[in-house]
Structures are given as structure tokens and as C-alpha cells.
């Protein structure tokens, strides 16, 4: 663990001490607490049965075990609900990166007909807070959801026993032959950029155009053992499926990212890579 950020949250081992926080919404304990309340508040949904936590389960690193998120009245969303860990370090939000700030992002699901289906004035009236207060509080709470202090973090900070020999071999593959770090890079294992990995390419067409070219934002790999199913559409049930997909170079399509290519990994190498990925689970905290 490192130092307190603005005396409101504790930064775990492996993450940057500096987290970008807008000047108009400084982190405070009060806002984080208010945001936590709102996060679990079902009054923010039309049917009073759905809260943010319905699709962002704290037990699953704030992700969803359903392939596609389900909102009010059983309505299906479009994509898998992503894990909300370490989003305070994010540069863009949603799978297609269409929103630039957490303050803006946290209100979108409330207004989405397939998620919570409320207008902001309606939601504000129900919880007794303005839309801006909700935005600031929810964003503050999401900023407090942090994952770090994993075996990987301990390993790269000098504890050579924190990873097994197989996991260390997997780390070498991750950064080398398997080329995972082309996109999954940095403390949060994401370049925060959009890539076409071919997952949306089905039957000769894009089933989901993502940000426009079948491209989706690189998700974090932290806590990956707890965030199945995987990809923007939850189409892979297991980590083995994911590695198998990248092993064959993804679904070829005209916009496929140049970094995707068959990996030619041996059985042992795949096993090592999976072992390494499992070392990325640490401790998830929300708030002080």
C-alpha cells in the first residue's frame, strides 16, 4: 500500500499514486460514502428493482456473470457489463470509449431505457440529490474501487517468490511471444485504446460496430479470474477460450488490429500464460 490520495482512498501496491481527479469534483469521504449508497440504491431504476450493483457485482470485481447485462423489467442491454475496478485511471469509458469522464459516464446507465430507464430529474427526485450531486458522488465512489496488491504486483516490486516459475514464464510470454502487452500494458493492464480484435466479426460482417470499425476499448486484466464471461459481448465463458481465440490470431476481418496474428503457443506455453493471468487477482477495495 502507498499513500492516501487526498486523504480519501488508499492506493494499493501496483497502482499510480496520482489519480486524475477533476478540480470541480475533489475526492472526499462524504462523496464516496454518498456514491456507495447511490450505487446500491434501487430507487434509481424505473422498476425499483435494479441498481448499479445489479450488473456490477462487488463479489465479481464489480462485473457481471451474465454475457449481456440485464436491466429493468428484464430488458437486455447490448454488451457485457465491464469490471469497474481502477476506472479512476481511465481516459475513456464504455466499451466503445464514447464518454470522456467518469462524471458523465455514471449517469448514462440511469437514463438508458435498457438499464435503469429513468430521467435524471426523476432519479434526482427519488434520492433527494441533484443530477450533479449524483454524478459527483457516483464518480467519486467508482474512483475508490481499486484493485492491486496482487502476486504480480508483489513480484515486480521485488518479491521474487510471489510468482511461481510457471507464472514467471507466463509473464515472459505475456510481454513477448504472446504479445498481450501490445494492448494490455501499464499498471492497469490496458492502453485505454480501441482495437478491433475480430470478436465482433461474425459471418462476414460486424455484429457490433463498437466505436465504428468493430473496435472496442481494451479492458483491464486485473481480477480477471473473477470477471467471466469475457469480451464486450461476453462470448467467451472461460480464460482458456480467450487464450485459444488469440492463439489463432482472432477473427480475420478488414479492420483487424495489426498486432493480432497466430501465436503458435505450445500447450505448456498456454498453460503458463493462463497461470500468469491468474496472478493478476489481488485485493479489491471500495472506499477508505
Amino acid at each position, binding site marked *: 500500500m*502507498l499513500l492516501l490520495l*487526498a486523504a480519501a482512498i488508499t492506493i494499493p501496491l501496483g497502482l*499510480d*499514486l*496520482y*489519480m486524475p481527479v477533476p478540480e470541480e469534483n475533489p475526492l472526499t469521504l462524504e462523496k464516496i460514502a454518498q456514491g456507495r449508497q447511490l450505487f446500491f440504491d434501487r430507487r434509481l431504476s424505473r422498476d425499483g428493482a435494479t441498481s448499479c450493483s445489479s450488473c456490477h457485482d462487488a463479489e465479481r470485481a464489480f462485473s457481471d456473470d451474465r454475457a449481456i447485462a440485464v436491466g429493468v423489467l428484464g430488458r437486455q442491454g447490448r454488451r457485457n457489463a465491464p469490471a469497474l475496478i481502477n476506472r479512476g485511471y481511465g481516459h475513456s469509458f464504455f466499451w466503445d470509449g464514447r464518454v470522456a469522464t467518469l462524471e458523465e459516464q455514471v449517469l448514462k446507465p440511469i437514463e438508458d431505457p435498457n438499464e435503469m430507464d429513468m430521467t435524471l430529474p426523476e432519479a434526482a427526485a427519488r434520492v433527494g440529490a441533484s443530477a450533479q450531486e449524483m454524478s459527483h458522488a457516483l464518480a467519486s465512489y467508482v474512483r475508490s474501487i481499486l484493485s492491486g496488491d496482487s502476486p504480480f504486483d508483489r513480484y515486480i516490486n521485488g518479491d521474487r517468490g510471489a510468482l511461481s516459475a510457471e507464472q514467471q514464464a507466463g509473464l515472459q510470454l505475456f510481454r513477448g511471444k504472446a504479445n498481450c502487452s501490445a494492448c494490455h500494458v*501499464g499498471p492497469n493492464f490496458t492502453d485505454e485504446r480501441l482495437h478491433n480484435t475480430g470478436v465482433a466479426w461474425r459471418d462476414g460482417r460486424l455484429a457490433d460496430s463498437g466505436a465504428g470499425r468493430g473496435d472496442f476499448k481494451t479492458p483491464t486484466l486485473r481480477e480477471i479470474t473473477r470477471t467471466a464471461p469475457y469480451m464486450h459481448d461476453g462470448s467467451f465463458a472461460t480464460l482458456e477460450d480467450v487464450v485459444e481465440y488469440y492463439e489463432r490470431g482472432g477473427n480475420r476481418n478488414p479492420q483487424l488490429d495489426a498486432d493480432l496474428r497466430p501465436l503458435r503457443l505450445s500447450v505448456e506455453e498456454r498453460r503458463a500464460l493462463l497461470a500468469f493471468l491468474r496472478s493478476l487477482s489481488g485485493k479489491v477495495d471500495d472506499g477508505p
Partner: protein
Amino acid sequence: MGALTSHVEGNMKRITITLALAALLPLAAEDKKANVLLQAAQAKETVQGDLKGAIELYGQAVKEAGANRALAAKTLVQMAECYQRMGDAESGKIYERVVREYADQKEAVTVARARLGGTDSGVRVKGDRPVWTGPKVDGFGTISPDGRFLSYVDWAGAGNLVLRDLVAGTDRPLTNKGSWAESREQAEFSTISRDGKHLAYAWLNDKDRYELRIVGVQGTGIPQSRRLFGNEDIGNISPYDWSPDGKWIAVSVHRKDGTAQIGLVAAQDGALRVLKSVDWRGPTKIFFSPDSKYIAYDLSASDTSEERDVFVMRIDGSRETAAVIHPSQNVIMGWSPDGAHLLFASDRTRSIALWKLSFVEGKPQGAPEMVKPDIGSSYSLGLSASGALYVWKGVGAVEIQVAPLDLSAGKLMAAPVSAVQRFMDSPQHLDWSPDGKYLSYVSRGPLGGWPYSLPIRSMETGQVRELRPRLRNLGAPRWSPDGRSFLTSGTDLKGRSGIYQIDAQTGEASPILVGPTPAAIPQWSPDGKRIYYRATGRSAFLERDLASGNEREVIRLPSRLGEVNVSPDGRTIATISEEASSKSSTVLLIPVAGGAPRELLRLSLAEGFQMYRGMAWTPDSRAVIVTKSRGDRRELWLVPVTDGQPRKLDIDLTNWAGGFRLHPDGHQITFLAGKATSEIWALENFLPQPASKH
């Protein structure tokens, strides 16, 4: 950094800041024609070196700029600079016109006034002085607070850390690691504590890992150092500044996944506090504010841009402030001793100038002001307590020359001539096309540094065509045997080192081999189906089949190996080998098909062979030309591989800078001539004078 070239085979890095031409003038639809003309003029000026042609195009661009006064003023300044370089007095008239007619264009007027020699804008141009010149000068260190001592790396002295007394002109080694042949260890960036008693430095150890070390500099002799920080996940660490309160050392760390991080290492216990993870290029430098509360650094604006911006962060990581955001390259230079101003270099007025920005309570105040124009490619080594800024400056230039050669006579048949006239920047890495009709070279851009380009000059017409591969760094591109592509080591936009193939028509770069092991100086087989390279960290040559990706080790030796030189018949690799045990330098012939290497010629290390870019095969594969060196003196020798005695070629290498390439027909030779070196300068009198007390 947008400023740092790669570390080339253990030699010194050169640091510059670059000009992002395309960024100077934002494109607007109505100015499209003017901008097209402007860019054509810039290309004429910087790529082709055709100043008269450039002036004509600049003139047309000014006419087309119409009501866009900013564009017109900047274009006029660029046109005047062309005249100035030609020694034409017309430059003065144009600068005067800018001052007279474009008073509302502050930046252009500031430059014009500075060029006219005026100081009425408050710009001070006096007080700059070189404080250290000579072959040992490098820029890896910092200045001591009293301005007397400078730390540096003695590359000729095998990478040892040295403290130079700028007043006495004496050097004191602080490490003693033996010769290059005995040890590949080396010092890199270093910083002196504010009390002048300690020095923190990066050290590449015998396990090829970087660590941060501290050494006391009081007393005499080689002091005992201690390891402060290091771990196996660190690819590189650069200590840039020591906090005034002595508690922290500001570092840039490069992780092995390519991430750069800005951090602080506690001077007491070596604990690393990671403040911010950034683009792989990281900051060029980090400086503490005089009150130790903030650090200032510059970062790339994006991964496809050469622009840099300057930021300030509280050392507890609680707040970052964007101090200088401008579509140009802005590089941190330090703080004024009173903490009232942040200093940065910027190319926003096309030439590189020193600027200051007021800073109060952790926040910038007002607009930046130019305090010193035309400081050139400069890299800050810090400020002394008296407010003098010490910089490492690139000086001089080299050019490409070509001469007819008669190998049987062993001499040049005519005096060398420049292949590229009036080239603005030092070119590097020459190569002939397989048909000998084209000469390629690597250019670092108009003022040095990135972006790299790969110009190709037609030897028949003199026309230059420029490729711009999307690579951050270009090694030594070699034409493919079919002339359709180049092979080079390089670094891509994500910071991944490897071997790349560049299309000779489009400039598109494709990876051949990218991975954690950077590959050095790849070469083609004569049929173009395989490549050969030396993997860094291993004294072995590898062969890679391009179709299958299969690799085999051609040879592995205990000695230190130079670059691969494949014979024209493809049967033999020639290289230079250095042995620490026998203290000798040897020309080796290695059978490509396998088998024991053959020693062709051996010298003592005292007069060794140039390991890189100093060797070529004759077209008939019957001899190699090698560069023999002893101190500053170099000679070319022709060494037959079968029978015959080595003989010295009657060629004067006095003005040569670096390596050479032999024309495919063996009747011409091209090389770099001139001298590009660096100096340490003190820049003074640019800060407001303290108010006198009465």
C-alpha cells in the same frame, strides 16, 4: 525523449529537441492552398536543402495566406531564415517587415526582433558561454549548485562516472569498472545533491540490469558506492534531480512491459514511490521546485506526435497541473532559483528558444515569455544557485560525401564531393541500393531528433524522395537485394524494439521480429530469403528464415562480436571480435553454413578495428575493407580473405565521421564527413535581476 536518440552500441546518446513542422500551423480550409505551399517550401528547405526554391514557395505561401496574418507572419519569418542562411541581407528587410506590419503577431515579432539583434522585448542575448568543450563532453549528468562541478559519463573511459571540475579543468573518476572488453557495465544519468556531497546515478550492472546507486563525492580517489534501488522488472532507470531537502530522487523508470513511470526514490531507504505511468517515451527530464513540493516534467502529447507539454505535480501525487500546453515541442529546463518561474525550451517560434512561466502556489500564472531566443538543440543539466542554466548543446554538422575509388590502386580517384547539398541536419546510416543508382540515409529532421525519415537520393538526377516509416527509431536500414524494401532495427510507436521491413515505395514498416530481445544491425542474405543479426546481450549471430520464421544460431563465441557483414556470395560473415583475455581485436570470417571461424587479422586493443560501420566486402567476396583505429587516427585496410597481404589504402580519413559504404560495383565509396559534437554551455542573465536593497 522526443529528444533522445537511441543508445547506439554503447556510445553516447545525443539529445535534442525537435521541430514538429506539421504542427506549427493548424490547417483551416480557407488556408489550404497556403499551407500546401508552406509544407512544400519546408520540404524544399529541409529535405532537399534547396533554399532558393524554398524562398520562392514561401513567397507564394505568403500571398495565398491572405487575411490569415498569423500564417503570413510565420511564413515570412521562415523565408527570412532561408535568406539568412544564404548570407543574403534580404533577411533583415523581411524581419523588419514582420516587426512593422505584423505587430499583432507576438511570436513572429519576437523572433524577428531577436534575429535583428534587438533586445527591446526584454530578451537578453548576452551571457552565454561554453564552459566545457572537447571529445569527452556528454549530457548524462547535472551541474552542482555552485556551478563548479559537472557529473558525466566517460565513454572513452569505458562508461565510468566522472566528476568534472569546470574551474580547474580536472576530472575525478567516481567508478572504476575496467575496460569495455572486461566489463559491459556503465554509468548513465546522474544527479548531484543540493549540498553537493552526494551523487545518485544509474548503473547498468554486469547482469545487464539497471540499478540506482549513490556515492559520496567528498574526499579523493574512487569512493565506495551503495545500491539504493533496483529490481528485475526495471528496464531502465534515470535519476534526473535530487530534491532540495535531500529526501527524494526524481526518477524516470522504464518497465519491461514498455511503460514509463515518473517516480521518487527515497534517499534514505530506496523505496520507490510511483507517481504516474506514462507513454513509453517518458519525460526528458524532471526537476524539483526549490521548495521540494513539486516536480516539473514534460510528456509527449500523444503517441503519434512529437509535441511535448510541460506538467507540474505535487510530490504526494495529489495534484497534477498542466503548465504548458501548446502545439509545439516544449521541454522542461528547470526552475528559477527562487521558484517563481518554470523554465522550458520551446520550438513554437520555429527555432528553439528558452521561455519562462510564472508559477505561484503550485499554479502557472499568465502567459509564458521568451527569455532567450535561438538556444539551439539544448538539453538542460540544471541551474546553479546563481541562476545560470547549464545545457548540453549539439554543435557542428556532418554531410554525405561520395568519391570514386580504385581498390587496386588503393586510393580515391578524385576529391570527395557532397552528395546532398546544404543538408540541414546530420545524416546517418548510409546505404547504396543494390543497383547502385540510389543512396539512402537516415535523417533526424531539420533540427535534429525525431521524427526520423529515410530519404533516398537518385545519383542520376539528384532528386530526393523521402520515406517516413511509422517508427520512432531507425537503426541502419539496408536495401533488400531486390531493391524493394529495407531491413532495419528500430522501435515502433508502442516502444517495441525489433527488426522491421520498410517498403521502399510506401515507407510502410512491418515487424519481422519484435520481442523482449532487441535485435542489433540486421543484414540480408544475398537471395533476400533470410536475415542475419546479433541478438543484444548474446555474443551470437542468428539466421532467420523469413518464410518460416525458423531461426538457427550461426555461431556463438565467448568474445564480444561486432556487426554482421554477409559476403556478396552469401557464404561468409565477416565481423570484428574483441577478446578481453588477450586484449585483442580480430577480423573473423564465419562460415554461414557452420564450422569454425577463421581469424583473418589480429591487433592489440590499443590499435583495434572499428566494430561498427567500419567494414565492407569487395564485390567479388575476395577481400574485406576494415577500419583500423588508434586513438583518433584511423586507416582503411584491404584484407584479402584467401591469399595476399593486407595493405593500407591511401585514403585520408581525417575528416571522416563514422562509417562508410562501398558501392555495389566497388568503384565508389560514400561516407560521412565533418564533425558533429557537443559542448556544455552556461546560459546566464535571462532571469529578472533581484531588486537591489538600499
